[in-house]
């Protein structure tokens, strides 16, 4: 009797359980195909393709003259002398300075002779080694050490090329391009950085390849950046290996379209020595790849081993300690794709939160991949290969590789919008001249009408005058020299001023003379 009852109960339980399981599979089937099959083959426009050198559209042109800097001389003095197109060759020696490049198209190259490098030495007192703001900057072949801030920091420079540098024990970041478009970071070796060794912040169209990063808090970090590929790097013994993030509270709010492929990501078990308050200070030691709030991150072909916490973790802002919430940033990691990777011996010593999740989910094995939080439209190609946790909602990827996408670097350099001389002259005229000169009334300086008459067919004369004005009128204040404008811009603004009418329309000065 009791046996019978037990059997009935069991079968009822099975029925209910089976029903629940069937429902679950029907609504959230792990075999649902996710993503477009041609995700990495279709949009070949505006990026380089197979057969093109990666550095085709980045770096300096080298069309100018060469300036040699020898041990004992100042690199900055050479930068100051240099014009766009110039190559600055730095010979082996120790250079204790901060080099800042606020010009376009400068090639800063170290000369390595019989194993002797040019060394930038910060002595633990200098802030940053190299700061650049210009477009088309190349920095290569330097050994950079003991700076308090960054080794190489870019602010808004496009088409940058940073390669073959050794960065050892600099303060916060090793290589940190920020707010740039189209940049290549390759063959650098970085170690001992207390935040990210390679930190791509708020950039677009980036390629990071063949670098070696070890003993840093974060190896490679792609933050608030789109269209980036991180490949063929050796990333080991950092606290966290490769990170794709949205940091909240920044003016550029998204990270998406990132491929992390063919990297060695191993033994990232270094103790976290990040600065208190920094975001990486919250990265648990032993994390191979961390995806936080980033979308369309595809992870393929990596060898991910011996990361004690977890091989890959996908998470959101809510689940990450120490992160402020930004209503303008989407906190979730969506459309993440995990393709074929080699993973073993990860997750053998997970943090408490992951241990707790394992308990709840009755998982005993060491975990390769963890998803914490909501992740919509994400997929995994072959879940059977890994031990996963929290990936129940992941579908099966509808694409198997990223081979069709060689790089997101642009086929042509990202250029500022090209402006004609007349357009530039107009900007300078309204932006600067109208502060003192109105068209037909006296302000601080004489009316533009009068200047037009005086210099009617002599824009060169006006351009010269504004560079070095002399006082001509007793009842007008002396004009300040406008020699900070380039000769080209001075001529452009002179021409514009001589041709402008009250409506801001540009007329050819020749027409004004012969109405």
């Amino acid at each position, binding site marked *: 009797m009791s046996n019978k009852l037990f059997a009935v109960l069991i079968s009822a339980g099975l029925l209910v359980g089976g029903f629940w399981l069937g429902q679950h599979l029907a609504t959230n089937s792990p075999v649902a195909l996710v993503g477009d099959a041609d995700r990495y083959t279709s949009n070949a426009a505006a990026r380089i393709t197979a057969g093109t050198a990666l550095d085709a559209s980045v770096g300096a042109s080298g069309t100018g003259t060469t300036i040699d800097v020898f041990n004992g001389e100042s690199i900055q003095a050479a930068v100051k002398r240099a014009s766009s197109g110039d190559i600055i060759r730095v010979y082996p020696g120790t250079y204790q300075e901060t080099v800042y490049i606020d010009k376009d198209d400068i090639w800063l190259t170290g000369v390595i002779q019989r194993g002797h490098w040019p060394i930038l030495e910060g002595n633990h007192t200098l802030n940053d080694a190299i700061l650049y703001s210009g477009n088309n900057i190349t920095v290569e072949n330097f050994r950079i050490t003991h700076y308090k801030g960054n080794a190489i920091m870019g602010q808004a420079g496009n088409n940058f090329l940073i390669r073959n540098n050794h960065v050892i024990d600099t303060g916060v970041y090793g290589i940190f391009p920020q707010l740039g478009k189209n940049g290549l970071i390759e063959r650098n070796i970085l170690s001992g950085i207390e935040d990210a060794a390679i930190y791509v912040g708020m950039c677009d169209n980036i390629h990071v390849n063949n670098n070696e990063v070890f003993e840093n808090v974060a190896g490679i970090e792609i933050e608030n950046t789109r269209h980036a590929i991180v490949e063929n790097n050796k990333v080991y013994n950092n606290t966290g290996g490769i990170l794709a993030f949205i940091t909240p509270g920044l003016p550029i709010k998204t990270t998406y379209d990132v491929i992390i492929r063919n990297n060695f990501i191993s033994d990232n078990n270094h103790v976290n020595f990040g600065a208190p308050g920094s975001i990486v200070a919250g990265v648990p030691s032993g994390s191979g790849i961390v995806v936080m709030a980033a979308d369309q991150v595809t992870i393929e072909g990596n060898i991910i081993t011996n990361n004690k916490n977890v091989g890959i973790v996908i998470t959101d802002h809510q689940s990450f300690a120490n992160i402020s919430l930004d209503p303008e940033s989407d906190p979730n990691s969506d459309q993440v794709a995990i393709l074929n990777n080699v993973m073993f011996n990860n997750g053998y010593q997970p943090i408490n939160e992951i241990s707790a999740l394992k308990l709840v989910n009755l998982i005993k094995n060491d975990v390769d991949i963890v998803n914490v939080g909501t992740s919509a439209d994400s997929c995994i190609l072959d879940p059977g290969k890994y031990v996963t946790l929290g990936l129940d909602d992941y579908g099966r990827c509808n694409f198997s590789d990223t081979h069709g996408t060689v790089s997101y670097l642009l086929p042509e350099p990202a250029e500022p919008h090209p402006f004609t001389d007349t357009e530039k002259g107009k900007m300078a005229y309204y932006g600067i001249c109208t502060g003192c000169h109105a068209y*037909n009334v*006296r302000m601080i300086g004489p009316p533009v*009408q009068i200047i*037009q008459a*005086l210099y*009617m067919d002599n824009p060169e004369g006006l351009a010269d005058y504004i560079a070095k004005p002399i006082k001509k*009128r*007793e009842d007008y204040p002396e004009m300040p020299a406008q020699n900070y404008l380039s000769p080209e811009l001075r001529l452009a603004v002179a021409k514009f001023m001589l041709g402008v009418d009250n409506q801001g329309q540009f007329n050819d000065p020749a027409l004004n003379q012969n*109405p």
Partner: protein
Amino acid sequence: MQLRHLFILLSCTSALTFASPHYQTCASCHGAQGEGNAAMQAPALAGQSATYLARQLNYFKSGIRGGDQSDTLAQQMRAMAGILPSEAAVQSVSLFLANLPRTQPAVTISGDADKGYKLYNMKCGACHGPNGQGNEALKAPALAGVGDAYLARQFTLFKTGARGSHPEDKPGRQMKMMSTHLSNDDLRDVLAYINTIGR
């Protein structure tokens, strides 16, 4: 300061004492003291910038000024300037006139001098000076003391292109361009203001 006064005094004296012999011909129209002659339509020249006078004389001599058929007065002047035999003569006449005390020709035009002051300040003063005294650095002649009739006539000539069209007359071409920025009514007001200068 005293030295400057002395210099001015000296130069005035020398001009009065040693009046340019070449000026005799000019005086018949422009007056013995360069005060002009309204009946002859000859402007006052006393106190005008010497460089301006010399430039204009040379323009007349070479036909840069006075070549336009519509400007018969200038054509007359062109003929008269030809009498001056040399650059030295041109300089001598010009210096003599420049050193004469400025005169006040009769007022013939009426207008709103207050409005004229504002217009003058915006359109003219930047070159011709806040008090119509001219500006050597800008090759701008004095306007005060010249006479409104002459100024009005010249302004119209600039407007029509009878003056200031010759490619070698750069300051004239500048003035021709400026003349398009003032209407006839505006001109009357500006002249009314210029007439008040020094009175």
